[in-house]
């Protein structure tokens, strides 16, 4: 029997993160060694120029898991939707 070594997650992007990547959302298979939101951002950075541009300054990009703000060290296990976006400028 095969062990599942990748998990599929829905990613959503907003504002300039969305523009740089060129996608509003996508489903990706994330390797199991990617455990945290910061590691996910680091892994995405390796997926091409657009991603490298979006995450060139990872400290600026914020993350949310299932529509809740999270810190970079938050674990992604069990997440169904992870969002990346710049600091918010509403109001």
């Amino acid at each position: 029997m095969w062990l599942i070594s990748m998990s599929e997650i829905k990613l959503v992007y907003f504002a300039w993160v969305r523009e740089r990547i060129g996608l509003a959302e996508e489903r990706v298979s994330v390797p199991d060694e990617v455990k945290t939101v910061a590691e996910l951002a680091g892994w995405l950075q390796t997926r091409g120029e657009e991603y490298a541009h979006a995450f060139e300054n990872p400290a600026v990009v914020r993350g949310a898991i299932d529509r809740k703000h999270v810190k970079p060290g938050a674990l992604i296990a069990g997440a169904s939707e992870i969002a990346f976006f710049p600091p918010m400028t509403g109001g």
Partner: protein
Amino acid sequence: MLPLLTVRIQSEPFDAAAEIEALSRLGEDVGAVTSFTGFCRSEGGRLAALELEHYPGMAEEEIGSVVAEAVSRWPLYGVTVIHRHGVMRPSDGIVLVVTASSHRTASFEAANFVMDYLKTRAPFWKKEHRVDGSLGDWVDAKIEDDRLATRWKLDA
């Protein structure tokens, strides 16, 4: 009586006077209603519009939790928050916060708190449209907004 809490995320304009009137009529012990309206600015004639993008679902939830926190801190009869998304022209209202209480301090402070937290937690982003028709930059978040939010000592 449970406070009347309303959070709306919409593209349509809002009627601030009607929303203030609605909270003013919540009961005979309502002694103070505070409202704040945030408008789109032209930045000295440089901008034709601001385009507001938002994260549907999370926007409602985040503003809802800020409103719930306000109600737990101040004795309020009602809170209304309306935040628009889409293209705003200068002088268009973007955000409305209305709070109703027996006394002015609670209604002022609660409205201020909701705005401070909404600025740093609600998932909205503004993009500039310049008067020459070109797309400008995404508006940068202000460090001052983070400082204003932290003065309420809420860690979330």
